[in-house]
């Protein structure tokens, strides 16, 4: 009896996607070494989840990576290592723009760590370029609800940002 589908080429998928996934995690956790560890963890989860193998594997591993990154961000915040790590991972603030960007980056990470995890996940997935349909699949909601959820997430992000850093940006 022949019931097997065409095998999923994990090796090719890994080679094509690893860099992007590691960078996606890196932009959240701000620590390249830790980002690479978490990216390996995301692919290891994919390897061990045969049901995720297939055409949606990209979205699956990306969503997993974002979750791992946010968990790491919260862990860093809890253990008070966040500040040290984020400062170590940012480039030297010699030019004023670079310094301002690093400061902004740190603020955004603090806000992402503070708001609802699902809302932070949604914002990161969206900023990573996922379409509304892909987002709907990734977070398991109807496509028609995605816009509303993003609106709420953006509102929560802005409220938290203004609460922590003030101003009318």
């Amino acid at each position, binding site marked *: *009896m*022949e*019931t*097997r589908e065409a095998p999923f080429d994990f090796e090719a998928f*890994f*080679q094509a996607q*690893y*860099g992007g996934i*590691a*960078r996606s995690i*890196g*932009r*959240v956790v701000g620590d*390249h070494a830790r*980002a*690479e560890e978490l*990216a*390996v963890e995301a*692919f*290891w989860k994919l*390897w*061990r989840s045969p049901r995720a193998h297939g055409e949606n594997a990209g979205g699956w591993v990306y969503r997993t990576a974002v979750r791992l990154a946010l968990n790491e961000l919260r862990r860093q915040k809890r253990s008070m290592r966040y500040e040290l790590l984020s400062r170590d991972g*940012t*480039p030297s603030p010699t030019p004023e723009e670079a310094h301002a*960007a690093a400061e*902004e*980056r740190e*603020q*955004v*990470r603090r*806000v992402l760590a503070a708001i609802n995890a699902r809302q932070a996940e949604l*914002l*990161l997935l969206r*900023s990573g370029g996922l379409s509304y349909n892909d987002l709907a699949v990734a977070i398991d909601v109807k496509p028609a609800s995605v816009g509303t959820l993003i*609106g709420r997430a*953006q*509102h929560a*992000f*802005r409220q938290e*940002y203004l609460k922590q850093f003030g101003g009318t*940006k």
Partner: protein
Amino acid sequence: MNMNRWVDDRLAALDEADGWQPDTARARARLRELDRQARIRRRWAWVAAAAASLGLLTFVQPRACAMPRGCVQNATEKNVTRPAATPAATPAVASAAKPQAAPAARQTSAVPNYKESGSPDAPITCEVYSDYECPSCAALYRDIMPLLVADYVQTGKVKLLHRDFPLPQHRYAKLAARYANAAGQAGQYDLAVNRLFQTQAVWSTNGDIEAQLASMLSPEAMRKVRDMVEHDSRLDETVAADQAMGMNDGLHATPTLVIVWKGNRQTISPIPSYTFLKSYLDQLARQ
């Protein structure tokens, strides 16, 4: 203020232009190491599972009624009169209408039996009782059967035999079995079985089994299947003979596996994980 733009501008700050290139080779090596460690852990788990299964089979009598998973026959239906049990319930035998002569007929029949696959000389036979409308049976055919076929049936270690055991509470199960057996007569048994399990959620709501098979079989094959389902009473005999054999095996739930080895019939229910099953079959093969 444009909220979209405001948030996007903030999130864009996360993008660093620092030229960082993640080390793919190092990550791949780490994945391989994780896989190696997992394999070692699994190997020990298999050893433990094999030891446990041997102990279980040595000291515990088969318990056909203990089914935490799968579909259990309704209590009110258990006393329904079944045809007399026969040691063989294959279509070739059933159509001969002489069930008592079944073992000899099955061994000597020159007609390929569509319900069997694998080498006739395989030392182990796995008889799988299933109900096409049973979700656990569909899961078995999706998750375990492909592995069993690849590792044991295609390598000549195991002969596989399908047996029908439609449960009374499943409205379309018997009709589905008729379609599958008709497809078998038309030389399309495996294709039909897989299709029926894959689309179980669809046809079990409306009974339109034909629509699912028609999308897989050729028009010519479908015409033959349709004719047989409508007119061939031997299809019911085939199913009834399998059910009788199942009753003889003490079965009242699906899916159930009967492993035949050196003349002994071992009923296994519920069907364990493939890892567990594999360790058991490997133990038998080594003895």
